[in-house]
């Protein structure tokens, strides 16, 4: 099956500061080597004091608009997926719409489904394009996630985002098909008014991440008649450096096909940005007619799987600075600066 719609442009934003797992382990008296080996995360991206999910979403969206040479007023829908929207009530999507000068006639909403809200936005834009409601849609996944100080999440919860402009014409990659798998699984949550999430610890592996990622990937391949050997690249949600590698192995993808999209060891888990930044890293180097499998995961729980084929248009598309260029440009900070930047201390 082919849907005849897809990606017209994409952009990413990765905040420039980094804190290493060594530095976090030093503060909490933990063994950094065990953490790094266990989690597969060496450092994570930290947003500046004046960055949040809205600013990250805007920066990623502006890069997508500039690269795709899209007139912002042609964008008919703006969906922002995040679990760290700056307001509980007051949309991020209207801040984005105004900051990119999209005008006032666009469909929009903020989406929330833990780390898969961004890929849900892709599906919404895709279906609106296929139905003829809009010509171009902007779907963004962005987060500035926090783990409680001293919680294992603190090593991985990071910040970043990616924006995709979908359409029907001048595609750089076609979305051939998509499939979702969801169950009610309380593996990770945050209640209203609570600053930090809670999680089910070891429970989050098998019944949550692996079950949903693998079921969605298999469901997509069954539905579209594809096999793992049909894909040149695969990218999965990356809560740590271990889970996506194990999921790939279970499904029959070797390291060669996932390593380029595996960004979590160097920037941490960007939540709603995670699989979308990984996909951007792959699109940065992909060639026409190559096929990519992307599978997101959101706790609570569900996965969205996509089969994407790269079009000829990618060759004339501006892809610099690449995701890996941005990853390499990080500036290291210590735990004291990190605590101040993430407002883990109160100032009067």
């Amino acid at each position: 099956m082919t849907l005849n719609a897809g990606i017209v442009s994409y952009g990413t934003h990765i905040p420039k500061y980094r804190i290493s797992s060594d530095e976090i382990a030093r503060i909490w008296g933990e063994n950094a080597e065990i953490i790094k080996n266990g989690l597969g995360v060496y450092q994570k991206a930290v947003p500046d004091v004046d960055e949040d999910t809205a600013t990250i979403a805007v920066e990623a969206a502006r890069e997508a608009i500039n690269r795709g040479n899209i007139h912002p007023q042609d964008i008919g829908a703006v969906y922002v997926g995040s679990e760290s929207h700056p307001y509980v009530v007051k949309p991020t999507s209207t801040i984005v719409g105004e900051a990119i000068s999209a005008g006032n006639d666009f469909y929009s909403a903020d989406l929330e489904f833990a780390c898969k809200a961004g890929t849900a936005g892709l599906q919404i834009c895709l279906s609106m394009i296929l139905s003829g409601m809009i010509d171009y849609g902007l779907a963004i996944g962005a987060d500035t996630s926090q783990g409680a100080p001293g919680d294992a999440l603190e090593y991985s919860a990071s910040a970043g985002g990616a924006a995709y402009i979908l359409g029907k014409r001048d595609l750089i990659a076609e979305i051939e098909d998509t499939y979702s798998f969801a169950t009610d699984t309380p593996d990770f949550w945050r209640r209203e008014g609570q600053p930090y999430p809670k999680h089910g610890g070891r429970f989050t592996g098998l019944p949550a991440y692996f079950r949903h990622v693998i079921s969605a990937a298999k469901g997509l391949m069954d539905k579209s008649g594809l096999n793992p050997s049909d894909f040149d690249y695969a990218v999965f949600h990356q809560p740590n450096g271990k889970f996506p590698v194990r999921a790939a192995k279970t499904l029959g993808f070797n390291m060669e096909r996932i390593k380029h999209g595996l960004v979590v060891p160097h920037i941490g888990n960007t939540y709603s940005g995670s699989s979308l930044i990984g996909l951007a890293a792959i699109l940065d180097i992909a060639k026409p007619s190559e096929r990519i499998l992307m599978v997101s995961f959101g706790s609570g729980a569900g996965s969205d799987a996509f089969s994407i084929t790269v079009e000829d248009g990618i060759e004339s598309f501006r892809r610099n600075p690449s995701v890996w260029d941005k990853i390499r440009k990080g500036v290291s900070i210590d735990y004291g600066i990190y605590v101040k930047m993430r407002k883990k201390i109160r100032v009067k």
Partner: protein
Amino acid sequence: MLPRFWRKIKYRYDLVGSYCENCGRSFYPPRNVCPNCRRKSNIREIRFGDCGKVISYSVVHDSENTRMRKPYIVAMIKLDDGPVITSQLVCSPDEVQTGMRVRKVFRKYGEEGESGIIYYGTKFVPADSE
């Protein structure tokens, strides 16, 4: 504070200013009348390009509301598209120099405590940084 900011959102969120078609001058913040042409002015709204260069700057070491970012830099930036604007430049005081290329970014300006509105707007960063 809220209504005053809200009405200017369009011009703070992006580099939206005005341009006089009669004499070719551009203005930021936007003006309704060109001071040069007065009654002959022919004002249009314009979105300026993303980049410019620093023509002057100050490093501010103390301020009531900027404890989280001290010291910070206020720069006069000549946009490639004409007007000179005053803006915060987000970089270390060791990095800044006159003539350096900068580009716009979307950042938080501040917020009204923990329950109030969040103010966003345009700041600048060195052009080669992501």
